[in-house]
């Protein structure tokens, strides 16, 4: 790509505005959308000339706190950034930590991680689609999305023991094995959801009212998406075939056939439809995982040896992993590691620097919502004010994730 096209003519993205004609509308932080975020929207008549996202309302200082906690304690810490997609966000941290520690994960644990990741992805997409519905006052979509999300939360709860904050992946494996009747229940849920998605199409995505609100709104061109470093479904809806599942070797994705859905239009409707495509793919992956999952241990041999034999026996009976005492003070050798994991919202990036002590020297986390924040500034310019909720809904922005 040529150098000049990459130059970010930052001011030119926004139309030059005349100070007298423009007025400001403050949206938030208490607003009917997802809340905890403010937009300063500058309008010329009804046309948006500039949007300034004012974030930081949920900044809980995770990077600083990670430096004061032992390695394993940061798993629940980072999980709180996106509790609606918690296995995916912790998996990145766990992967980076495993690279530092030099641990191989047993195959069954990799499959289980993939299983929960995909369940989380579906739940996260349904959450986003439900909100996209309520943003244009389509409360049926909101209720359907949030209602059907409960199915996946119930499955995740049966697997891990918590509705949202699973804290499932740990260095070297996962925390609990598949329950006996899980496969049967998961397949029922998938068959229900497949039928249900057809009704979703009828009542929402093909509904001319929705199409009128979402189609040809907030078009993100392929070149711009690349230039702005967008990630996740928002990127793929613009025709770029990029997914961290293809990039990073984590979970069981190398052993599973799956297509990464791509759409070319790049408008708000295609961003929503892409999430429907991803739900279908995820259900397919869950099917394959349940089919192919190998037997074996769910924790790395290195740690399994440290657990007393009596506890190992109860572990086998209950299917729940006991931690070796070493976990309270894991000491990776000095060095650095990066990891990328595809969340429902996009790619999460971790960089851990270790100095050999039980606490990390520095943990850097860049979440997909933070990277997609540029979209909220770039896409609405030139649209009418009431298109703004539609664009915000289609981007699937999650403020606690962006603010960390």
């Amino acid at each position, binding site marked *: 790509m040529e150098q000049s096209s990459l130059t970010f003519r930052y001011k030119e993205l926004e139309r030059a505005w005349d100070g007298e004609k423009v007025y400001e509308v403050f949206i938030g932080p208490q607003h009917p959308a997802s*809340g*905890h975020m403010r937009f300063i929207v500058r309008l010329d008549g009804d046309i948006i000339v500039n949007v300034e996202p004012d974030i930081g309302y*949920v900044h*809980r200082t995770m990077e600083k706190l990670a430096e004061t906690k032992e390695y394993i304690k940061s798993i629940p810490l980072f999980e709180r950034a996106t*509790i*609606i997609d918690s296995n995916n966000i912790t998996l990145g941290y766990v992967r980076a930590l495993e690279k530092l520690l030099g641990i191989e994960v047993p195959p069954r644990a990799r499959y289980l991680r993939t299983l929960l990741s995909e369940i989380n992805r579906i739940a996260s997409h349904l959450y986003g689609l439900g909100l996209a519905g309520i943003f244009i006052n389509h409360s049926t979509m909101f*209720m359907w999305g*949030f209602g059907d999300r409960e199915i996946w939360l119930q499955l995740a709860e049966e697997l891990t023991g918590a*509705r*949202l904050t699973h804290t499932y992946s740990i260095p070297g494996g996962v925390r609990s094995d598949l329950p006996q009747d899980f496969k049967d229940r998961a397949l029922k849920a998938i068959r229900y959801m497949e039928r249900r998605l057809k009704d979703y199409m009828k009542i929402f995505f093909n509904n001319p009212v929705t199409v009128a609100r979402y189609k040809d709104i907030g078009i993100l061109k392929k070149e711009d998406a690349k230039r702005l470093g967008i990630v996740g479904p928002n990127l793929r809806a613009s025709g770029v075939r990029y997914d961290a599942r293809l990039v990073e070797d984590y979970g069981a994705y190398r052993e599973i056939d799956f297509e990464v859905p791509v759409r070319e239009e790049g408008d708000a409707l295609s961003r929503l439809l892409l999430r429907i495509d991803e739900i279908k793919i995820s259900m397919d992956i869950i099917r394959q995982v349940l089919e192919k999952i190998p037997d074996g241990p769910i924790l790395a041999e290195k740690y399994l040896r440290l657990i007393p034999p009596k506890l190992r026996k109860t572990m086998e009976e209950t299917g729940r992993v006991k931690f070796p005492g070493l976990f309270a003070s894991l000491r990776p050798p000095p060095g650095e590691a990066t990891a990328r994991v595809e969340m429902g919202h996009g790619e999460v990036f971790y960089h851990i620097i270790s100095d050999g002590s039980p606490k990390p020297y520095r943990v850097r986390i860049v979440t997909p919502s933070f990277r997609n924040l540029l979209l909220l500034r770039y896409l609405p310019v030139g649209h009418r004010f009431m298109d703004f909720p539609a664009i915000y809904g289609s981007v699937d922005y999650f403020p606690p994730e962006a603010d960390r």
Partner: protein
Amino acid sequence: MVCPLMGIVLVGNLEESARKASRWFLEKPPIRNLRDWAISFSLWPVHFTTSCCGAEFAAASCPRFDAERFGFLPFLSPRQTNLLLIEGTLTRKMAEAAKIVYQQMPEPKFVILMGVCALDGGIFHNSYNIVRPHELFPVDVFIPGCPPRPEAVARSIIMLQRKVRNSKYIWGDGHEPKGED
């Protein structure tokens, strides 16, 4: 016969007297019971998402748990609400907004703290950017959990309803936010 209202109403200015009369009226037992019963079934929380517990709060008002059965309907403008539900962490920047929202709500108003981040910080207890909401507002119910289950949210509503019906709250008292930051 001397009207019992005389002694209350016929002192001070008109506005003051009217307020006193209305309070006297509302505190009379049958009306008071009716009032409390009505309030307890119209707890309208303001749609003020402070953090990620909002996901479970949404789940509580959605099909599976359906908090609307309790007359608990999230509403957008603080002017039409009487319940502030702090959903998770309250950061310093958000606390300013929370105080404004609380001040805008008409009386009687109640506060529920949801999630351990709102109680004592939870996993973020030593963070430099959070505040403890119970230092700012008079709180009625505390829900533990991170995040609490929607059932726990329903439980807190039931507890608050009982509290209201037992007339445990004092009208027009202690409803100014405490503290500065």
